[in-house]
């Protein structure tokens, strides 16, 4: 048996009040993709920080090719052949690909001049190894996100990498770009590099990994050979209970038409989009990034101005020019990026929840705290938001609870139509199903709900009807009963030419 490229032995790390890692052991063999799973707070990031030299373990030992190693700093870890590909890109857009790859360690000639010839030669060699379709001279700012990620990977390969750790690498990639990334990962594996792959997305893990290890509550919960296991088993290991992942297939009884969009267009973003949403149903919008799904939501919410078409709410034609108009007409939007667009992170949970209507919660010139409390208490209980107190800053909550604050914020406005864009992005598996159930509940309470998602299982799980989009147009509309993964994939790739009105 070959020696592991990287081995962690009984790692313990405690913080005041928390035992973040409780004797975790983990290894990755050369030429293996080892997936590391765990819910948020399970200890994945702490483990990676120990590995990357950001934290020092309290107990335990790290071995590189069976030699004990101490990671003093991220730079030290890199020089020992342990490199990280992070979720967030950290590239300088205005510099060339080659400069980015060797940022901080540019080859030099006398008097500190950059040795461009060497720089480009070495960079080109790395790019070749990754099969990249761009040159070292390309300006990074002109690359797509997937290609930028490739630069990030190239940067990691300037040292002789023994283990490469991918931390949620697909968070901002389209499906096509993911395929390219997986090719690269497979390529590295074939070159004998040990790969640690961290992700929330079950489908990816089953596509790419050879082995799966699970962390829960800071402890190692077991390893599975990917080929011999299934999603249910992994999920059970992760959350310690089983999870209902089945589709919602029973047809629901729907009410009146809440929203009717007729021939809606917005410049080049989407054209001639027509659909209806009834009360009591969830309509899922599925498509690739750039298919125009989010843009439709933004238009309905008044963040963009429609260039043609009409919007009717409960049969009455309305003009929506600003979010204020949309709110007045009972439309709410839970945006795609809750930290950037949904929440005021420095504000308390309560204040976030009452933000859109605080103007109405006054007594004399002042905001009435007791009216705010009433609203917060109602939705805190209803949505089972876990927060130590209403004063807690929204930024300190977990992703799932943050999302509930945003949803609660809009429910308290008594909307007719609730649009939820990427309801569970960056939320761990356990909370995901909670949010899904919540969305189903809301529909059964009579809300009209639009869900936009890039994750097919999610769309299939929550929607009564699925609208497939491609290049700014609606390609097909499915009911929950007739939709299949294959037909959906075809529709969003533009393969299916038939358009159902």
């Amino acid at each position, binding site marked *: 048996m070959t020696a592991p490229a990287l081995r962690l032995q009984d790692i313990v790390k405690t913080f005041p009040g928390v035992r973040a890692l409780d004797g975790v052991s983990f290894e990755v063999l050369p030429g293996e993709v080892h997936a590391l799973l765990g819910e948020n707070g399970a200890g994945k990031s702490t483990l990676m920080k120990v590995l990357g030299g950001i934290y020092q373990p309290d107990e335990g030992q790290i071995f590189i090719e069976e030699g004990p190693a101490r990671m003093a700093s991220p730079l030290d870890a890199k020089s020992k052949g342990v490199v990280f590909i992070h979720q967030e890109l950290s590239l300088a857009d205005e510099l060339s690909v080659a400069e980015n790859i060797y940022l901080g360690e540019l080859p030099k000639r006398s008097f500190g001049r950059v040795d461009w010839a060497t720089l480009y030669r070495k960079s080109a060699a790395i790019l070749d190894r990754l099969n990249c379709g761009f040159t070292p001279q390309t300006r990074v700012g002109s690359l797509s996100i997937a290609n930028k990620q490739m630069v990030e990977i190239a940067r990691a390969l300037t040292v002789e990498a023994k283990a490469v750790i991918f931390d949620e690498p697909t968070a901002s990639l389209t499906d096509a770009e993911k395929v390219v990334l997986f090719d690269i990962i497979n390529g590295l594996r074939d070159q004998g590099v040990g790969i640690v792959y961290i992700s929330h997305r079950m489908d990816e893990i089953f596509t790419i990994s050879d082995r799966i290890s699970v962390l829960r509550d800071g402890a190692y919960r077991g390893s599975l050979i990917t080929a011999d296991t299934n999603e249910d088993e992994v999920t059970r290991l992760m959350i310690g209970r089983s999870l209902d992942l089945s589709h919602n297939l029973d047809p629901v009884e729907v009410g009146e038409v809440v929203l009717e969009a007729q021939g809606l267009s917005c410049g080049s973003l989407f054209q001639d989009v027509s659909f209806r949403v009834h009360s009591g149903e969830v309509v899922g919008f599925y498509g690739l990034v750039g298919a125009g799904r989010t843009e439709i939501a933004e238009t309905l919410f008044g963040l963009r101005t429609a260039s043609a078409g009409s919007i009717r709410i409960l049969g009455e034609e309305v003009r929506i020019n600003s979010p204020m108009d949309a709110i007045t007409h009972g439309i709410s939007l839970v945006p795609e990026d809750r930290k*950037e667009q949904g*929440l005021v992170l420095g504000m308390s949970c309560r204040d976030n929840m009452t933000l859109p209507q605080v103007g109405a919660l006054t007594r004399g010139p002042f905001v009435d705290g007791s009216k705010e409390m009433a609203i917060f208490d109602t939705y805190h209980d209803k949505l089972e938001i876990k927060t130590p107190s209403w004063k807690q800053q929204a930024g300190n909550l977990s992703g799932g609870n943050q999302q509930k604050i945003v949803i609660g914020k809009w429910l308290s406005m008594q909307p007719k139509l609730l649009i939820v864009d990427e309801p569970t992005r960056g939320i761990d598996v356990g909370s995901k199903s909670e949010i899904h159930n919540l969305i189903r509940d809301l529909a059964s309470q009579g809300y009209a709900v639009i869900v936009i998602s890039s994750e097919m299982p999610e769309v299939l799980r929550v929607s009564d009807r699925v609208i497939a989009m491609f290049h700014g147009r609606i390609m097909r509309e499915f009911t929950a009963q007739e939709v299949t993964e294959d037909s959906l994939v075809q529709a969003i790739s533009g393969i299916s030419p038939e358009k159902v009105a």
Partner: protein
Amino acid sequence: MNTEKFRSFMARGAIWGFIVLELVFFSIAGEFLSLSDKAFMDWDNMLLLFKQSAPIGIIALGMTIIMINGNIDLSVGATFALCAIVMLDSMTWPIFAGLGDWVIPVAWLLALMTGMFLGLINGLIVWKTGVDAFIVTLGSMLGFRGLVFMYNGENPTSHLNWTLVDMIEVDLLGVEVPTIIFVICAVLIWLLMTRTVHGRNAYAVGDNREAAVNAGIRVGPHMVWNFVLIGFLAALSSVVFYSASGSVNPNDGTLYELWVITAVVLGGTKLTGGSGSVISTFGGVIAIQLLRKGLGHIGADTAMVNLVIGLILIAVLFLDQQLNRKGKEALKV
């Protein structure tokens, strides 16, 4: 006390601790170094201190809102000077000749409206063009100052109205009008920021503008109001100050914007917006004035005072950064 509580205590209470430190230091150092035999913490001296901090302080209250909003206003010093000219000069205009002393409220009103109008201009440009407030108000700072010089060239504009001087020097148990106005403004703006919808929105807009837009807040008009408010406060500050002095030089108010920003930042308001407090700004204003007076008390000259304030500002922000850094995992940039 656990670290979290300690941090938040330091964040809120630091400026007051600093003030106490200053008082203690200057009282003790004054015993040895001061040329006068009066104690530093003399009641009259403290009242004078409040009065002297009023002009900067009143503007700093407005700057706090602007900075919580994530904006900045560099034109306040020029606004301050221009409003003074409007007030002093309008009292001599022939059309108001028949008003007698009733010209005073008219002149005040004109000055205040000038300030609000200048703020409105700033606000509208920031809203409608989307250009950064720093650039917009840098431009208007130069522009407004240009207007000041166009008015009377290099010459001072003077008009001493004794009724006015008497009015402004009225005191209530020793507390003079500028101090009273400063304190009233501080209380009102504190209420505005902590108790009203406008205040709530100001924090939301500064912390996360996109989320504020998504919550239906009309961010543009909101910011315009704040610029009008700071314009009004700059004018009010000017009115209070020049009612007593009766003469304005075209260079008056230069660098006021920087003193104001120093006081606000010293009080813990973040340049990036979203957090800050009016009460702490009040503390910041007092702390700076204490430092100026205290250093004067122990015999330092103006140049030395500026050097020390500059160093302290940097030291305070460095300390703040150390306290707010969340453990060692923070990026080493």
